[in-house]
């Protein structure tokens, strides 16, 4: 199953490497990744797409939340269809 994760990250040195490294170490492949600035220059927003079952998703989310520089991590699911579809955070 395809999942989209949203991670809010403090802009500390090495923070992105730690997130990417965690996925690699836990053998979860990142299919797509975007990093965007937020209104707060000290915080970036990461959006990741990955494949895996629900258990893998839950475990990786919990592991991500153990990273010190992670402010928040949640899974997004697609709501609606076509032009009007949008992503909403689901409590995981």
């Amino acid at each position, binding site marked *: 199953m395809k999942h989209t994760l949203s991670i809010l990250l*403090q802009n*500390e040195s*090495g923070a992105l*490497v730690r997130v990417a*490294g965690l996925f690699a170490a836990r053998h979860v492949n990142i299919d797509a990744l975007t990093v965007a600035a937020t209104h707060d220059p000290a915080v970036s927003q990461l959006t990741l797409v990955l494949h895996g079952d629900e258990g893998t998703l839950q475990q990786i989310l919990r592991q991500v939340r153990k990273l*010190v520089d992670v402010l928040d991590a949640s899974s997004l699911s697609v709501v609606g269809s076509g032009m009007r579809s949008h992503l909403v955070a689901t409590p995981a």
Partner: protein
Amino acid sequence: MTTPMQTALAAPTIPTHPLAGQAMSGAEIVVQVLADEHGGVVFGYSGGAILPVYDAVFRYNAEHRDAAGHEPLPLVVPANEQGAGFMAAGYARASGKVGVALVTSGPGATNLVTPIRDAMADSVPFVAICGQVPTSALGSDAFQEAPVANIMGACAKHVFLVSDPQKLEATLRTAFEIARSGRPGPVVVDIPKDVQNTTLKFDGNSHLPIPGYRARLNAVAAAKLGDEACASLFTALAQAKRPLIYAGGGVVSAAAAPALTTFAETFGIPVVTSLMGLGDYDTTRPLALHMLGMHGTAYANYAVEDCDFLIALGARFDDRVAGVPDQFAAHARFIAQIDIDPAEIGKVKTVDWHHIGPLVAALEKLTAWGRSHAFHSDLSAWHAHLAQLKHDYAMNYNRDSPLIQPEAVIEAINRQTQGRAIVATGVGQHQMWAAQYFDFRAPRHWLTSGSMGTMGFGLPSAIGAQFARPDALVIDVDGDGSIRMNVGELETVTTYELPLKILLLNNGVDGMVRQWQKLFFKGRFSATDKSLRKKDFVAAAKADGFEWAQRLERKADIETTIAAFLAHRGPTFLEVMIDPDAGVYPMVSPGASYAQMITGPFIPSRSAPITPELAPTHMF
């Protein structure tokens, strides 16, 4: 007495640090924060990129020596930084305090990688401070530059590269906070040399914000076990006829051993512990079943097979315990789990009930709830069953052999130490014999590399423990392969005049690997025979300054030699030539269930003995 109201009103005023506002170099700030947050022994090896800090420690100690001449931050220098790392870890494991290592850049830092990963895997509070090349040289392949943040980032709980000198002090304090809070772990602080040399203003209390980490930590710390959750757990317990507690290393970290003892004994629930949990519950008490798992006691493993209710406390169903998760405690109709780490809940085994929060509060609440509801369940049949298991499947070994059996040596020591010695180990068969045949009456007496299984851990971690507990009897139980890995630290023992006792169980082989080769590789002993090695360990110990260094070769001499070994006041080194063929039993082979446990030639088995297929196993 303060009422909750008063505490709420009195805003927590943090007293100003007496040195607040003073100008200090970065290096002096490092030392001042060490004095404030740690105030104990620092293990480390100097070098170019950390010289300013070593100089500042020297000056600090010279200025703050007490009347008896003791230094507040003694520097202990190992033979290798890996030794320093395991000493810091041993110090932390034996005391519960944060261990500190201080090393230079490049090779100094990379030599620490193994101890840092080891501390992470066993949840040991640790702060490692590494020198780094100057910020202007970062990324230039400079002399002794290593990408410490990248390397350690993958191994540690957290790593900081201090590129802004203004954040140095806050970073160091925060490193201690992260190392000791929540599920403890190692934090690495990488400090470029120019940052150490910058003149800064000392604050005395600054911390980094880390809002995400703190918010999650506070949420877990505040999580209270409610009455409803207690009621549902006790409802399941009331229906259970054969309840069992499975306690792990989290009980040690949380200082929850007394709360566990009260909980277990109030409701009569027997206790098995993991390798990391030895000491959670006094192994000499009637409800204790000692260790479960791959090399657990047969009666502990059978108890897991037979239980119908299991509560895991600070334990994580690791593959040495639940090699086949589906078949682990397969008859348990209810599995409960309490842990401080949300990621451990249901990670391996689905649980019916869980609580994420501090263990002491949770156990005290459960005990109080059960008492106030006069909870009672008649477990006498279960207790009788377990007493029978303990009797019928007691630990045993080849007592009639003319060769010295390692188990007999450990039993002889245990008769004298009575579960009160601090025992460190290497990794291999000797580690498992020590786990099986020693008693442990309290936590922090058992120092072993559980999750990483790092050979070479024993000697340096015992050294660290002896520094943490100068008056305690500390014994390193080591193997000939393991001790070689950090054998340079023998000299550290005598240099610092530590009264450490080193027991080397020499079987002339990499015994544990050989045991697997015997079972799974048709006895092809590839690269595990060490009998042609030339090392004379006793001579080596003498050369390193051990006045008491002996070899034990005759079975008849065990008692007298052990007595002398323990009685000598200074450091002692005893090499025991043991049966090279002695095996570790019981053994749950990788991929097998507890019911299929091999109990070996000297312990009876409940099922027909299953000979493992002599086929290469893909399990590890």
